[in-house]
């Protein structure tokens, strides 16, 4: 029960208005406010809580991307992670990077760092893929506790309460395992200034995907990105009869 790997992703802040690039190849990211993916914050908080409860000895924050992601790793370090790993991916590789490549990187790192747990956010708010945790578990052939809203360590096993469509499901899985954090797992702490200052002294190791034997070639090609169609104004009607008449005129019924 020594080491936990936590994945953190740097995404466009959720309050920012997204703009599609004029050439429709993607969204504008230059100079736009970015922050840590909210589900990744919850994942970091859970890992740090487990360390405080003395179930694990070390929390390692991992992020993949260009130099800017080191800011995200620093925030994770300020929240309580012990050290960071920055897997350098930039340019075309970064734009094409998706859950498949990330999960390969995490699988390789989990083996290299001999982690007992890999905790990730359930999904990223920019692509909403909800795949990385599951793919990582599959590549490692480890059990997975996804959509976790409660995590309890019980000896060599982990009890996970999962949020599913039908309600809550409680499972017990053996470690090493992959967990993905859902919204109600915890309330992340703030990264306070004294901790940010201390975090500057914590180590962030840099490596490339090639060092882990991972090829970054994407199997997905983005053809085009468009804005969602503008919503037309709604029409208010006074009575049910009006509503039926409008729906009939519209051809809906």
């Amino acid at each position: 029960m020594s080491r936990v790997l936590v994945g953190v992703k740097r995404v466009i802040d959720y309050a920012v208005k997204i703009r599609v690039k004029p050439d429709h190849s993607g969204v504008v990211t230059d100079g736009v406010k970015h922050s840590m993916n909210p589900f990744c914050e919850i994942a970091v908080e859970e890992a740090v809580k487990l360390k405080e409860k003395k179930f694990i000895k070390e929390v390692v924050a991992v992020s993949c991307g260009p130099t800017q992601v080191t800011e995200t790793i620093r925030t994770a370090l300020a929240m309580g992670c012990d050290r960071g790993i920055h897997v350098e991916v930039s340019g075309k590789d970064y734009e094409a990077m998706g859950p498949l490549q990330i999960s390969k990187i995490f699988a390789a790192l989990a083996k290299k760092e001999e982690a007992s747990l890999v905790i990730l956010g359930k999904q990223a708010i920019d692509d909403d893929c909800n795949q990385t945790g599951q793919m990582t578990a599959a590549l490692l052939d480890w059990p997975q506790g996804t959509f976790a809203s409660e995590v309890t360590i019980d000896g060599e096993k982990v009890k996970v309460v999962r949020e599913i469509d039908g309600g809550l499901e409680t499972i017990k899985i053996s470690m090493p395992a992959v967990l993905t954090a859902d919204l109600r797992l915890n309330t992340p702490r703030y990264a306070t200034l004294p901790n940010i200052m201390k975090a500057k002294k914590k180590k962030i190791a840099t490596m490339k995907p090639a060092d882990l034997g991972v090829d970054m070639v994407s199997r997905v090609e983005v053809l085009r990105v468009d804005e969602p169609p503008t919503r037309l104004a709604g029409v208010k009607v006074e009575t049910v009869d009006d509503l039926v008449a409008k729906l009939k005129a519209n051809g809906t019924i």
Partner: protein
Amino acid sequence: MFPASRYSVQAQRCIRALKTVQAEHAPPQHYMWRRNCSSAVMPRITSHYTIFPRDKDPRWEGVEMARFADEADVVIVGGGPAGLSAAIRLKQLAKEQEKELRVCLVEKASQIGAHTLSGACLEPSALNELFPDWKERGAPLNTPVTEDLFSILTEKYRIPVPMLPGLPMNNHGNYIVRLGHFVHWLGEQAEELGVEIYPGYAAAEVLFHEDGSVKGIATNDVGIAKDGSPKDVFERGMELHAKVTLFGEGCHGHLAKQLYRQFNLRENCEPQTYAIGLKELWLIDEKKWRPGRVEHSVGWPLNRNTYGGSFLYHLNEGEPLVALGFVVGLDYTNPYLSPFREFQRWKHHPFVAKTLEGGNRIAYGARALNEGGYQCLPKVTFPGGMLIGCSPGFMNVPKIKGTHTAMKSGMLAAEAIFPKVTAEDPASETAGLHIPEYEDNLKKSWIWKELYAVRNIRPSFHNYFGLYGGMVYTGVFYWILRGKEPWTLKHAGLDSAQLKPAKECTPIEYPKPDGKLSFDLLSSVALSGTNHEGDQPPHLTLKDDSIPVANNLAIYDGPEQRFCPAGVYEYVPLETGEGMRLQINAQNCVHCKTCDIKDPSQNINWVVPEGSGGPAYNGL
């Protein structure tokens, strides 16, 4: 990581629960307020600890309030042009003279440049002094001004005014910049030089030594709930102590307000007068794009007695982007005036509409700016600190430029501080260093000459002919005599005192936004990217919760609903009973400071919210 409190988290929760039970039995004085003249009960609006101190609040008993403290040589509040220039200059001097200097800069925005908003036509004078090699360093000054147009607008037509050399607005030699990007670049240069920059942390409190001099600042606390009680994630801010603290909060800074009172810095100057500037970025049709073109206008839609005007700059950064905006002097008298809606209305003028037709709006923001100039400059040094940049207010109003003077003031501050702060024995009377040399240097510099020369232009608008009288004055006394007239005109006094009661004024009929050129307020606010943690006390604090309805609404018809460019203030009907109440949508705030300036009751006190909240401007 949790605060080392005397009690465990569970025990704290228990104590809090007990306190709530006790409070429920106590008469509800703090939590509800009854209006004198009606039986309606007003919900409490303000819960901030600056109005309701925590040492008297039972919910805060037993909460650990000790703060972690750290020492630096110089602490700078505000990562704008002034603060960053001061930091850079300090580190440049340290490098030249091979001395060690710890410079820490705190900035409330989540990243440097995110709260920066300006036209802007940058005069590179200060930049040339700071970084003579700015071009090689990649400073984003990509658009030299090629064309300069000035117009007086009427409802349908445009009267061109020749831009003669020597007129303050002549922009030959200047650059159109996206100031947010420029400030971001300055931040990168500062970090390279070793300045410690901490974005996302707001300076919330000034700290004082026993002898009354400034000791430093404390950053904001986090984890306070909307009703003012501590949450589980509550953590105190951090104290940063310094030999000298520089305050570069920009126009109408909230800590600066405190310092003016504390050290009586404004006893020999006029009260500052302001304007609000609203800005948008548009991607326009390529055929209409004229990179390097600068357009200014006065006149329509404002009447001749309301100071204000517009700007429209064509940027040259690879795409057909224009920066445009509208400025309204906050000494306006009609409470029905809405600067936002004047701005939206102005875009429909044929001369402006033809540039914007077929284009797309991609950004919006607003900020107050200084208009007082020379007459309103306070004392800028005090024991332990000094004021730099737009905070004391070095903007050259007729030139519509304040960035170059802000940067220069930061640099002069650094040059005055450096010998004192690196001296073996500072020989200071107070624990915090008092460095009046900064003010002496300012008075000898080109900032002072510039501001003195244009000092009478803005006040000259206070005459029967308003705008036209002012233009005649500028033509005669500035263009011909260069501001050498022996008199100094006065401003009209506090902006907040200028509003006439609503019943003496006519409501203004604004056209509905058409969704193509003009837009509604809420969709504009969404474009600013502004957001705040929802569960925190509103940072627009009211000294007295009863005054908005009793005074602002009753006499002035609630002008804050109109002058706030972000829709923070709304008068809504009470849920039960007759009457209205003020609703403060603090999450929308874009940190422009207009409400603090223009509130006729001076009841609104803007304080800083949790750090990294606020707008997310990108190159505005």
